[in-house]
């Protein structure tokens, strides 16, 4: 209990003292997870839209695959990505292992199915006649998709948050493919694990609070965007 208070105090101290290492780790986390989320959006929103609106025979199969992908364990992703990126692996020559890029790749693999699945679910929930109405108004395919995204922006933002949440909070893959190298690939979650294994629970807790704060702020930002849109 008392430890939790210590953690909060420590978190405030670290934040306000502007500890450069904590800042660095926080920014790196944000950059890596933010980028991975972006890429996942670029992959997941189109694929989710295709799954929801497309009319191809294998749709159901892909849908259940994506749903399974939503449960993709970070450690498995970490392991498989490692196997590819290790020097002995097929992509070893790219020398990506233990770099931030490797983490971004792994996190993208984790977040993309989440974004895809939730995008598809969000669009499937819309009235199917809305698509007809939009086409009837002379919208191109892209305009229809854009308008449907606008209609479903609430659950789409939830999908975005879920995607970001799944990567900012995962540790297995970042640890395995990033290597938790200080000043280079150490992100908040891996730093927490490290401090924890050092028995520095208070610092681990402090970093946890910073991580949660980060998630909360990103979240507030998105909620604010979400509330603002209807006036646009």
């Amino acid at each position, binding site marked *: 209990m008392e430890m939790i208070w210590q953690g909060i105090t420590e978190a405030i101290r670290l934040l306000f003292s502007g500890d450069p290492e904590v800042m660095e780790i926080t920014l790196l986390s944000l950059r890596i997870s933010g980028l991975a989320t972006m890429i996942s959006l670029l992959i997941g929103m189109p694929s989710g839209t295709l799954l929801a609106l497309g009319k191809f025979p294998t749709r159901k199969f892909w849908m259940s695959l994506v749903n399974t992908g939503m449960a993709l364990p970070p450690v498995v992703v970490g392991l498989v990505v490692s196997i590819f990126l290790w020097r002995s692996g097929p992509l070893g020559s790219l020398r990506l292992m233990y770099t931030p890029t490797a983490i971004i790749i792994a996190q993208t693999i984790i977040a993309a199915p989440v974004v895809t699945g939730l995008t598809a679910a969000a669009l499937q929930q819309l009235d199917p006649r809305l698509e*007809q109405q939009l086409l*009837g108004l002379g*919208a191109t395919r892209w305009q229809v998709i854009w308008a449907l995204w606008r209609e479903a922006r609430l659950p789409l933002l939830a999908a975005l948050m879920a995607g970001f949440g799944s990567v900012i909070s995962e540790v297995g893959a970042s640890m395995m493919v990033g290597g938790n190298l200080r000043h280079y690939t150490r992100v908040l979650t891996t730093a927490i694990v490290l401090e924890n294994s050092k028995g520095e629970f208070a610092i681990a807790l402090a970093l946890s609070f910073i991580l949660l704060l980060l998630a909360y702020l990103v979240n507030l930002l998105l909620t604010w965007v979400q509330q603002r849109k209807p006036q646009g």
Partner: protein
Amino acid sequence: MNILEVKGLEVIRNAMKVLTVEHLAVAEKETLALIGPNGAGKSTLLLVLSRLLKQQAGTILYRGQDVSTLGDLAYRRKIGLVLQDPLLLDGSVFDNVASGLCFRRVPKAEIHQRVDDWLEKLGIRHLRNRASRALSGGEAQRVSLARAFVLDPDLLLLDEPFTALDTPTRLRLLEDFRLLVRQSGVTVIFVTHDQNEALLLGDRIGVMMAGRLAQVDQPEIVFNAPASAEVAEFVGVETIIPARVIHQAEGMVIADTGTFQVEVVGDCRVGQDVYICIRPEDVTLLLDSDGSSSARNRLEGVIIRTTPQGPLERVVVDCGCPIVALITRASATQMKLQTGTRVRASFKASSVHLVGR
């Protein structure tokens, strides 16, 4: 030239064939009104015509060109569509009305101008910045209409466009719309359940029944000379009596119902089984004591029911079989008509129509 021509159309929904249209041609600048019972396939036809539902068979020609070669988008940009439900997008009323123009990348200033123009015409200018989720039913319908009209399309496809509107607005709008259609030369296909609307706006009326076009013709013909007993019943011919032609000469026919005989202007083979169709407004009621009339057919009977119908009174007279008359309230009051009154129902030979059975 036909702006739209449909051939051999078949549509299957839900594993049921819901639409079969052998042939339908709509001329440039024509207004075609579609009427028919619920579930007859009217909305389905509009959906197919706007390429929102793919037919299982048949072709649709737009100005002589197969729409499937024309491309759906290019085709849809020529039409304005109002579906049965308003289906507004999340956003303001303005956003909704502007949406089609935005899709077409019309310059902003022009969008504002055209949208405001139509908001004004439809009497919803004051709702311009209202969220579309916070509209009453009729307001939403007006937005949906404005959204299609503002596109200034070549072809308007309207599914029950005026139903949720209040009467004065609807009457005014019908009037405006009629003028607009005439002026702009837009072709219109619209679905309605209001036969007045069909009569007022339609150059031709199509009657759909059970997925087929039972009759497509000028309003007068559809209403006065329906193609079948079903159509007759649907368009408000309330007196439909089975009979057999017993005499035919000089464009005049006598049909016998078993109880009485009716003279009809027409041309039918003797011995043919027919239905006698008489519209209620073509039946005049005379008190027994009244004088003569020019009408050839006069049947005696007793009033078995009277019901008000707008400014008119609907009177059912039992003359062996029920005959329905629609007379002004004024005459009804003057003649003191009520259940049990003995009257003579009279109608002209030219206002009776025979359909085969």
